[in-house]
């Protein structure tokens, strides 16, 4: 698991309290029984952690753990290049 994956997992687990549930790339919010309040807390925490701003349009596309990891890794990679 990459450092980004580890960090996102830690954030999600801390907020959603889905300890014991496996987080795979295809795991969705629904699978975790996470609601919209969980989601907004996770996004705010990610913004804080990575110093980014996740637009509402982008946020709507982030349906699974894999989506989230790819998105954050993309942001981190883009920032490394610039």
């Amino acid at each position, binding site marked *: 698991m990459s450092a980004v994956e580890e960090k996102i997992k830690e954030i999600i687990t801390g907020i*959603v309290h889905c300890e014991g549930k496996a987080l795979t790339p295809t795991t969705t919010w629904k699978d975790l029984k996470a609601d919209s*309040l969980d989601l907004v*807390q996770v996004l705010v925490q990610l913004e804080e952690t990575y110093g980014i701003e996740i637009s509402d349009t982008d946020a709507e596309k982030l349906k699974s753990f894999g989506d989230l990891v790819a998105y954050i890794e993309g942001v981190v990679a883009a920032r490394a290049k610039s």
Partner: protein
Amino acid sequence: MALPRVVVTGVGAVTAIGLNTSDFWSAMVAGKPGVAPITRFDASAYPSKLAAEIKGFDPLKYMDIKLAERTGPYTQWAIASTVMAMEMAGLDMRKEKSERVGTVIAATGDVHKIGDETDVLKARGPRRIDPLFMNRISAHMAPVQVGKFIGARGPNSSINSACASGSDAIGQAFNHLRLGRADVVLSGGTDTLVSPICVATMGLLGALSRDAESSKEPKPFDKDRNGMVAGEGAGMLVLETLEHARARGAKILCELAGAGWSYDARNDTAPDPEGEALAMKAALEDAGMRPEEIDYVNAHGTGTKLNDASETKALKIVLGGHAYKIPISSNKSMVGHLGAGAGGVEAVASVLTMVNGVIPPTINYATPDPECDLDYVPNTARKAEVTGIMSTSFGMGGQNCAIVFRRFTGA
């Protein structure tokens, strides 16, 4: 048309002197002080350094971690008190029509935290504040979360009329039941006054005791009283129509017989005995009871110079010479002032007084005051068969409410 009668079948409380109903009541009867030096924040620069803080309350005893993280302590205390009250009442929501069960709770919320979050907003911008800020601090979240927790889909309201809120909420719940809008209403109050901004502002207004000796504060009705002490907690009742309680075979603790409201329309901070008396008279009239039928008053009794003298005058206006013959005591001498929670906890204590035949004392009482010349049950609880109790609550600003409990005789 006669209105339906309303009874109390369960009570629950979380306070500084007991984290559950039975510990709370034992401490009340023992005259245990809940006041101590403030530990929640550094109060060394504050005019008042005392509070009755809740210590050691574990929300996870009553709810899962997610709900605990999404709610402020005031909501958690309300949920815990509700669970205890429902247990005592033997109220099983699976057997109730959910839309016929209401929730009416007095609350202020953790409004004192608005400043902290505004600091974050100013310093770090709108994307960095706690996204669940409203969930954690809003007054309405107390009845909202209680209603959701137990699955009650009837009337759901939060009441705020300052320190009169708790009794006000119970009175509003009483009317829902009498008007046929619900069969059962969970009602009471929850609040905290133990916050830096609250202790600072009430200290500046001169409302809080400035004495450092925690073991002697507050001193309701005492000549040397010098203010109230901030407290916190919740008290909840299960109220239901007599018909509903009988149909489910519930044990009836007592009857909620009357409620009365009034407003001083005079001064923001100074109480008006005539205004207070209007609420008490209205409550007695509502109950259809004469002054002589009240044999105990659970007083507002904050411990401020003005309140206790004004309340004493108001009691004499309403009860006449009978005021001198009956015991009157202040729960706030032990649990501090719970703000919107006060009326709820005092209603719980009133019901338990009637059920157990013991009147809790006014502790820290040493020196009689000519302006407060009634029987305040000084320092030691008293055994007494009580059949009619009036509980008074007066809010800063002049909102007043009194509620009356009567022994249930079955007739």
